[in-house]
């Protein structure tokens, strides 16, 4: 299991477009579970609506938990995605 945190630098936060792309990315690692947590509430990152429902905004810190056979590659890909888009 791998965990890491990320603080949102994008002004609008995880809005529709990045949420869609993040969910798509998380889905591409089959068998690996990605959970994203904000303020005690955590959701499965492949679930777009719930992800949008977290309401992650500029300045928020979110915690990722990645678990599964591809956890290393998946963590890297997600951190990379977050850094470049959010």
């Amino acid at each position, binding site marked *: 299991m791998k965990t890491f945190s990320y603080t949102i630098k994008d002004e609008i*936060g995880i809005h*529709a477009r990045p949420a869609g792309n993040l969910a798509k990315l998380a889905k591409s690692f089959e068998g690996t579970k990605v959970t994203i947590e904000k303020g005690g509430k955590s959701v499965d990152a492949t679930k*777009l*609506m719930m992800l*949008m429902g977290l309401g992650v905004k500029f300045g928020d810190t979110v915690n990722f938990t990645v678990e599964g056979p591809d956890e290393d590659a998946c963590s890297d890909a997600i951190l990379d995605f977050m850094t470049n888009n959010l």
Partner: protein
Amino acid sequence: MNKFHGTGVYGAVAIGNVSLFKRQDTTVRRTKIENIDAELKRVAAAEEKAIAQLSEIYEKALAEVGETHAQIFEIHMMMIEDDDYNESIQNIIKTQSVNAEYAVAETSDIFSEMFAGMDDAYMQARATDVKDISNRIIACLLDNDETEKSTSEKMVICADDLAPSETVSLDKDKVLAFVTAFGSSNSHTAILARNMNIPAIIGAGEEFLRSISDGDKIIVDGHTGDIFVDPDNETVEKYLKKQSDDNRKKKLLQELKGKENVTLDGTKINIYANIGGVDGVGAVLQNDAGGIGLFRSEFLYLESEDFPTEEAQFTAYKKVLEGMAGKKVIIRTLDIGADKQVDYFNLDKEENPALGYRAIRICLTRPEIFKTQLRALLRASVFGNLGIMFPMITSVKELQDIKAVLEEVKKELKDDGLEYSENIEIGIMIETPAAAIISDKLAPMVDFFSVGTNDLTQYTLACDRQNAKLEPFIDTHHEAILRLIEMSAENAHKAGAWIGICGELAADTSLTETFLRMGIDELSVSAPFVLPLRDAVRKIDLRK
């Protein structure tokens, strides 16, 4: 004549007739069903059909408004495939033995309420997206194929609200404008309207919708958000004129876009644009400016309740640099003083704010403010072609001090392992007579000068520009000002620096020839003036 008002989302005028937008009936009845499996299969088939429709809409949007804005329909497809959304539909069917239509409608309410209840306007607007996809699935279940309304002439579409997919599905050749009673300027519908170049007003109110009927004559002014139903002749005349002005400007725009800023004898000049915020980039590109000659960084401080953080500044500068994709972006450091008050600076009230504690004077005495801005600027510099410009310079000493701080900040960044570009141009504003007079000493220390004619005029003529009584005494073409500019230009060129003008005088086409003769290298004006100025330059012949 009835007048209404909403928010204009695309600035253009339309005069035409009302066509009320009619949606097909997706009224849902709750009925008990026997065969749960069959009902689940109906949902799956309807979703498949809905996704096929959306993928067509996506292609249409891709062609008409570009990938960034078409992506919402890709998201819609993903939303339909969302596990939780589908689990909810399936659960309702299974536990209540009800029809698929009802289950989708219920699920739509649950999820749209979740978004509507969020404390963020952007997310609240997503409730519309949920309703949009759900209605599409319901329509597929009811087997109502979408039928476009057939009209022979272009109409002004009026609706309670338009879903993004409805907006894109509108046949552009039949839509003159659209007006919605509800909706927010954050909605994708508003964004799409902007990109489809359709005059549009949103949030005109319920009263508007109640008072119109099909075929009513209507004027829509997307610039101001004004709507006139059943207008009188005088109003029609007025707006016909506004429309033809718009068209003339648009034509000028089309003809001059992509052309060089070159005189008949072959002298070239750069025409850049001035902006006051990140959202100005769109207008800069739309008007085909060669770069940004003045990006006023004050908005970051004025819009904030405390000193903007390095991160917030970095994000804003990065966005502009990326948006300009390698074109020059000149950002002016903090230019705040007693005339542009910001509470948290705790500045004292002054007798003569124009001659007071402001701009670089604040930066050099409160280095923590200055350094934060410089760090953000340097960090952003790797994302484009940055120039940094310092305001209110009067002496060589000030410039030396600035450069010392800049070096300090660079060293700190290096120690922190943070990147910055080595090719940042450094320049100063020439807006005090002192700077112009000693421009021979300042020029070797910089890459460029930019003349701020508004302040230069007020300081040279000793006229407060806030005082309306002084208007007769403010001659913006005063020889003293022109001589100071010419002197600065000569000194800049002698030292190998370039010189631009970013004040209001830059847009004054009666002086364009004078500036060209002085050898001015760049004029920076507000975006709408870029093309008229290009037009003026292209008619000048310096051989005469």
